C-alpha cells in the first residue's frame, strides 16, 4: 500500500505546517488589534477615567502586553478556549462560533450546491456546444452573474419576490428547509454559479481536445460515456481547486448576504467584532477561518490525487 502510505505521510506533513501557521496568524491578528485606535468600550459618550480604569482592570487590559499575550496563547493552546467576548458580556467565543457556524454553513453549502449544479450543467453544455447559441447564452449570463455584486442582486430579488408579489420573506433566518432561505441562497450562489460555469467550460474544452478523450472515442464509447466518465472528471479539475477556498469562504460566512437578510451567521459577527474591537472574538473567528481554509485546501489536494491519475504524493 505505498500509495496510501505516501498519502498519509503527505497529510501529516501538511498538518505539521498547519499548526505553526495558525499560531502565526493569531499572533499577527493579536498585534493588529492593538494597533487599531479605540477600545471595545469606546462610544459616543467618553468615559470618566475612573470608570475606564474599572473596565481595564476587570478584563485585565491593564496588564503588560506580554502577560496578556501569554495568557491568550496559553488558553488557546491548552484548552482551545478563546475566552469570552468583551462586547457581548458573558458569551464565550467558542459558543458564538458554535452557534453561528450552522447558519453560515447552511446558507453556504446550499449556495455552493446550487452553484455546482447550475454552473457545471451550463458550463458543460457551453463546452460541448462550443460557439453555439447555448455557449454564448450561458457565458453571457455568467458574465452578468460575475458583474452584478450581491448587494445589488439581493435587493433586486427582495424587491421583486418579497415587496411586490409578497411571495417570499425579505429577510430573517429560519432553519432548513424554509422559504426564508431561498433568496439568500440564490443571492449568494450567483457569483459562484458564474465562476463554476466558466471554469467548467474552460476545463472541459481543454480536456475534450486531449489525447485520452480521443482514445476513449476511438474505443467506440458512446458520447454520453465519454463525457460523463472521462471528460467531466478531467474537466472539473479547475472547479475542484476553486472549491477549497470558495467553500471555506462560504462556510465561514459572507458578510454582505448575512447583513442584507439579517442572518445570525459568522460573517455578521466577524465584521461587528472588528468594528467593536472585540479582541477575543476577532482572534477566535480569524483562527477558525484559518483552520477551515487550511483544511479545505488539504481536502482539495487529496481530491486531486483521486481525480487526476497523474498526480501522486
Amino acid at each position, binding site marked *: 500500500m505505498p500509495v496510501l502510505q505516501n498519502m498519509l505521510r503527505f497529510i501529516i506533513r501538511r498538518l505539521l505546517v498547519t499548526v505553526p501557521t495558525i499560531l502565526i496568524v493569531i499572533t499577527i491578528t493579536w498585534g493588529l488589534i492593538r494597533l*487599531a*485606535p*479605540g*477600545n471595545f*468600550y*469606546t*462610544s*459616543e*459618550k*467618553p*468615559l*470618566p477615567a*475612573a*470608570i475606564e*480604569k*474599572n*473596565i481595564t*482592570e*476587570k478584563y485585565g487590559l491593564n496588564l503588560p502586553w506580554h502577560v496578556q499575550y501569554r495568557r491568550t496563547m496559553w488558553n488557546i493552546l491548552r484548552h482551545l478556549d478563546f475566552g469570552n467576548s468583551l*462586547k*457581548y*458580556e*458573558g*458569551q464565550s467565543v467558542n459558543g*458564538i462560533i458554535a*452557534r*453561528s457556524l450552522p447558519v453560515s454553513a447552511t446558507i453556504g453549502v446550499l449556495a455552493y450546491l446550487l452553484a455546482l449544479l447550475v454552473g457545471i450543467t451550463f458550463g458543460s453544455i457551453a463546452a460541448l456546444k462550443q*460557439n453555439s*447559441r447555448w455557449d*454564448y*447564452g450561458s*457565458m*453571457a*449570463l455568467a*458574465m*452578468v452573474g460575475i458583474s452584478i455584486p450581491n448587494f445589488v442582486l439581493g*435587493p*433586486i430579488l*427582495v*424587491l*421583486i419576490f*418579497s*415587496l*411586490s*408579489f*409578497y411571495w417570499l*420573506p*425579505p*429577510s*430573517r*433566518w429560519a432553519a432548513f428547509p424554509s422559504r426564508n432561505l431561498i433568496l439568500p441562497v440564490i443571492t449568494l450562489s450567483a457569483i459562484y454559479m458564474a465562476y463554476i460555469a466558466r471554469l467548467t467550460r474552460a476545463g472541459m474544452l481543454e480536456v475534450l481536445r486531449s489525447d485520452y478523450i480521443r482514445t476513449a472515442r476511438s474505443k467506440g464509447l458512446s458520447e454520453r460515456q465519454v463525457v460523463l466518465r472521462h471528460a467531466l472528471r478531467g474537466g472539473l479539475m479547475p472547479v475542484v481547486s476553486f472549491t477549497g477556498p470558495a467553500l471555506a469562504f462560504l462556510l465561514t460566512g459572507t458578510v454582505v448576504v448575512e*447583513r*442584507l*437578510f*439579517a*442572518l*445570525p451567521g459568522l460573517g*455578521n459577527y466577524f465584521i*461587528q467584532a472588528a*468594528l467593536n474591537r472585540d479582541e477575543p472574538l476577532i482572534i477566535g473567528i480569524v483562527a477558525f477561518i484559518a483552520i477551515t481554509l487550511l483544511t479545505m485546501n488539504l481536502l482539495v489536494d487529496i481530491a486531486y490525487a483521486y481525480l487526476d491519475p497523474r498526480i501522486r504524493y
Partner: protein
Amino acid sequence: MISHTKELVLGTTLATIAFVTIACSASAKNEVFFGKTTPPERNILRYVTGDEPESIDPPVSSGQPEARIYMALYEGLVEYHPKTLEPIPAIADRFHANKDSSEFVFHLRKNARWSNGDPITAQDFVYTVRRALSPKLASRNASLAYDIRYAQAYNSAAVFVKDPVTNQFLLEEDFTDAVPPEAEPLSQKSIGAGELEYEITDEEPQQDADTAFHRFMHSPPRLTLPADEKRRTARVSANPKLQAAMAGKELVKVSGEDLGVEAIDDYTVRISLAQRAPFFSGLVAHPLFRFVPRQIIEKFGDRWTDAGNLVTSGAFKLKHWKPYHELVVERNPMYWDAARVQLEEIRFYPMSDNPAIMNLYKVGEVDATLNHSVPNAWLDVVRPKKDYMDGAEAAIVYININVTKAPMNDLRVRRAFAMAIDKITYAKARRITKPLFAFTPEGIFSGYPQPKGEGFDPEQARKLLGEAGFAVTQRGDGTYECKNFPVSEIEFVFNTASSNKTVAEFLQAQWKQTLGVTVPLRSMEFKTFMVVRNKLEYKGFSIGLWGADYMDPFTFLGIFSTVGGTNATGWFDQKYADMLNEANSTLDKAKRYELLARAEKLLLDAQPMIPIETSAVNFVKKPYLKGMYPNAASLYPWKFVYIERDTSKWDYGIPNMAE
C-alpha cells in the same frame, strides 16, 4: 457570432429591467399606509431594536437597543411617561424631594413582586445601586449616579482618611484647595442638617427621617483620596496642609455601605445626594437604577441572565434569546400591574440595515421599527404615509471646534465660520430636522427660555474673518477667496456614516461659498474617530452628536462644564461651570431655567462649537399598534402598548402627544 452575444445580453438586460419596473409599479400604489396592515393574530409585538444587544444586565450597556429591552424586563422606582418621559410611579407609588432637591424619598408599593413571586423591597433597591456602582462590575454608565453621595468615590475605588485614635475622618472642607477642578467636577457642597423638610403626607409622618446613617449622610463630607498610591501621593504632596494631616492616619476604603442609598424600612428608600439635583427623580428611571434580583445574581453569578435563571422586576420576563436573531420576552403574571399588560409577547429583532428593516415592515413581519430607520432616500415615499412617526428629538447635531490650535483659537474666526452656515437651508434639504441656534435642542424643554446664537450672516462673517487677519476678497466672477487663510491648519473630521457625509459636504460648500475657504474633509472609522476627536488630535472641526440622558437642559449644558470627556473642544471657562452650579442649586424651576439659559448664552458667545440641527424622530409603526408614541428619547414603557383590532380606533398619523 458576436451579434448573438449582444442579442442575449440585451435580451437579459431588458427582461430584468421590465421585471423590476413591473415590480416597482406594483408596489408604488397610492396607499394610506406603508405596506400591509393586517394585525397579528395573537397579541404579539414584533419590534426591530437595532444592533444586537450587548447584554441584558441593565447597568452594563448604555445603548438604546438594550434600553428598550431593559424597559420590558426590569422596572425602576419610577418609569418614563410614554409621551412626556416625565417620571411616573412604578415600583414606588409615590416619591418626594426635600426642599433643596438634595434628598429623595421613594415609597415602594407593597404588592410589587419579582417574576418568581418574591416581594420587591427597599433592600433590593439598595443592592441594585451598590452593585451598579461597584468598581468590580465596571458599569460604563456608573457616572450617571455620581450625584449620589460618595457614589463617585465608591465607583473610583477611593479611600477615606481616618484617625485610628479618635476614629474621626478627615473632612473635605478642611482641604478644599486640594481638589483640582478636573478630577472632581461635581460640587461637593454640604447639605447641612436641619434643612431637611419633607412634603407632609397624611398616612406617613416622617418619623423615619432620622437614622444613624442619615446623620452620616448629613455630616460634612469626608475627604476622599485615590486608592492608587502614586496618584494619592501626588495629590497629597500638592497640598502641604493635607500632607501634615496625613501623618499617623489610616486609609479606609469607601464601600458600598457608604453610598447615599438607604432602606429606611422594607418599603421606603431614601437617596442622599452630594449636591442638589432637581432632575434626579427623572434620572432614576434609567436602566442603571432598575431592580435586579440579588438572590439570583448571587446564586448563578455570570449566568444569572440566562433564560432559565433570570428573574425580572418588569412587566415581562425572558422567554428565549437567540443572539443576532431574536430576543423574546413574555408577559410576567407576577408583575404588580399585570392586569394592564395586554401584550403576550414582545419579539425584539436585532437588525441594523435600514432597507432590510423597512422591507420587513412593509411585508408586515414587524409592527414597528426603531428610531431613524427610514433612510433619507425613502422619505419621499414613506413620509406622506399615515404610519410614519415624526417628532422632535432630544438630540442635536453640532460641530466641535478645537480651540487650542490656531487659527481656531481666535473667537472672530470661530464666529465667522459659524455665521457662514445657512442652517435653515440645510434643515430644509434634510426635510425632517430643525435648524438649531442654541446648544439645547429646540422644542423639547417646555418653559426653558432658550437663548439664540448668531444666525446666517455672510457679510458679517467675511468682515470678522478680515478682522482676524484673513481678508476675504471677491473675485471677478463674484466668488470669494481668502488667500492667506491657512487651510492646511483646519479640517473637518467625522466618522464614516452617510448622514455625516451630508453635513460635511454641505458645510464645505457653505464655507467655500461664503468665505472662499475650502475645508478639507476627513472621514474615519467610528472608534478611530472617537479617539482622534476626544484627544483633540484634530485641527479645526469635528462632528458632534448628543442625545439626552434625562429630560433636562443640563444633560446638554453639562458637557462643557468640565475639560475632556464629551467636551472635545479644549474650551473651559470656570465662570460657565459656576453659573451651572448656581442654577442647579436654585429651587424655583423658572428661576433655575433662567440661570441655565444665561449660562447657555455664555457658551454660545464663546462659540467652542457650532450647533447645526435638532434631530427628529423618524420611524414607522403599524396603525393597529397603540400606546406607542414618538417621544423625544424613543423610550417606550411597553405595558402601555397594545394591538387594536378595531380599525376605527387605529392611529391615522401621529397619535396625539398632548393629552
